[in-house]
């Protein structure tokens, strides 16, 4: 079972590493399939990977963790995760400066049924502008 994404969490402003981001909190319930708990998406990136090949990042030197694929109908899609999202935190653990394997481990802990992600995406900026309406951003 999954929750509706809470609308007031769209477009929150958070500050991470001295920069302002528009970020969103998403809570995903893991689905049990046989022995495994799956989340239904794929990640790419990490400090040990080549950032130039990331199709979703704006800045090609960004070594963060990005969502590269979403299983249709899986828990992640239901929770509101979209392809191209950059994951900033997982359950409080920082994901901006981790290796690919460390990120995977943080997401696939067997004892946790729920992961709470802090994500950011390009289109969030647009959404904020639209929702704020006539207030132009300098």
């Amino acid at each position, binding site marked *: 079972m999954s929750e509706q994404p809470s609308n007031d969490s769209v477009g929150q402003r958070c500050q991470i590493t001295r920069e302002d981001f528009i970020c969103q909190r998403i809570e995903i319930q893991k689905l049990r399939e046989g022995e495994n708990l799956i989340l239904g998406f794929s990640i790419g990136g990490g400090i040990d990977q080549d950032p130039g*090949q990331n199709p979703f990042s704006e800045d090609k030197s960004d070594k963060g963790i990005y969502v590269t694929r979403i299983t249709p109908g899986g828990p992640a899609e239901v929770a509101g995760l979209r392809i191209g999202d950059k994951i900033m935190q997982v359950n409080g653990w920082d994901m901006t400066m981790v290796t*690919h394997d460390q990120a995977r481990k943080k997401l696939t802990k067997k004892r946790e049924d729920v992961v709470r992600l802090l994500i950011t995406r390009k289109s969030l900026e647009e959404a904020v502008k639209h929702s704020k309406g006539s207030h132009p951003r300098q």
Partner: protein
Amino acid sequence: MDNESTYSGYSYKSSHSRTSRKNRERRDRHRLKNRDGSIRGDKSVMIQAPGEPLLDPESTVADDRDDNWGETTTVVTGTSVDSISNEDLTRISKDLEDSLPLDCRRYISPVLGAILGLISVITPLAFLALPQLLWRDTLDPCGTPCEGLYISLAFKLLILLISTWALFLRPSRATLPRFFVFRCLLLALVFLFVASYWLFYGVRVLEPRETDYRGIVGYAASLVDALLFIQYLALVLLEVRHLRPAFCLKVVRTADGVSRFYNVGHLSIQRAGVWVLDQYYSDFPVYNPALLNLPKSILTKKMSSFKVYNLEEENTNNSTGQSRAMIAAAARRRDNSHNEYYYEEAEVERRLRKRRARLVVAVEEAFTHIKRHQDDDTPTSSPKHPREVMDPREAAQAIFAPMARAMQKYLRATRQQSYHTMESIINHLQFCITHNMTPKAFLERYLSPGPTLQYLDNNRGRQWTLVSEEPVTASLRQGQVFSLKRLDFALVVKVMPLPFLRLAEEFIDPKSHKFVMKLQSETSV
């Protein structure tokens, strides 16, 4: 003195009752060689440690003593600490004469083999000749088939002779303590064979005066065939069986721990011992007794700072208890001698490198003084200043002088001075000059200790003792240990089997080598 130790050992043994004459003869033969070294030239001789200058007891030791020695010493040839009495001396000389055919034990096997071989070669010819000689007129005439058999017989005999010469008629390089089992087996086989053929021949041909000559020729031909097959068997048993490696021998020298590993096939222990010694002389660096010990200054420091006072009557229990306590206390105490060892070793190393550098420079400079004389140079140089033309020996002596001091200091630093006399260095220099060697090639002999073979003179045999818990004709097995002893060190040999190999195959299609870039990995969670 080394002389005394060997002689005292001998006299101790000679006063024992002789249990087995053969053993004692062998021991006598080996120990007496020292005295009669000049008479028996190439037998196995017991000599002192291989590195030290060989001290021939008969050669005038009096040269380095003063002239008054004759007044104070009473024994002429080699004194021993426990002096041998007169009757021992007479007994020794009597035994010497009795055991004069000492050679026979060494030669008995080849001589027996030779006799047997000769008999077996002559036998077919005798088989053919005897009927012709004795009852020629009654023999059936035998035309072409016999001639064909004659030719084949002749060629087979020729092949037999050639292969016997090639395989077996070689001077043996070692005397083994026990009989060589396979060789005895083969000799017995040949003897039985030939004897049974002769028996059959005597009963069936000579007595009834057989007239079928073709049958007799066929009989002789079958004997030669069988001899060829026995020779094939001998080849396999004596030569080929030990070629395929089956065991790995670890050989360790007890004096300084130098070790090597060798692969051998199925051999008996004594043959393996001979084989190991062959490799020893060319693989192991020469044993230098001067290089072994820690300097005394480091070792004795440990002992001197712990004193033990004996306050009561000494009985055995107390003394062992005390010594044990002393050892335990010494072990617990903090031990700093490793520090001194480390620094002293570093110092020695540094000094050695300095002397080596000086030596290399001196030799290089010396070699620039001479040049090979080309014959076509003479017209141009003779009008100006005639250069003196020297032969290699003089050239060597001429350039030896500037490098002599550096060489001597280096040899002393590496404790090699006993192996290289001035004469030998000049000889080596002459050799190198003759063959156009560079200074580095000349120095190769002195910069690293070479194999023992380099320092041997070949006219004396070498005495080794094989020590083994199992009979020495037993075949090698896993886990056996035997050792080869000399006077001051031993080689301990341990037998390990080579592992059984399971070789599996895997086929790789050359088109299956494909690669992808892995820098952007994607993991699904």
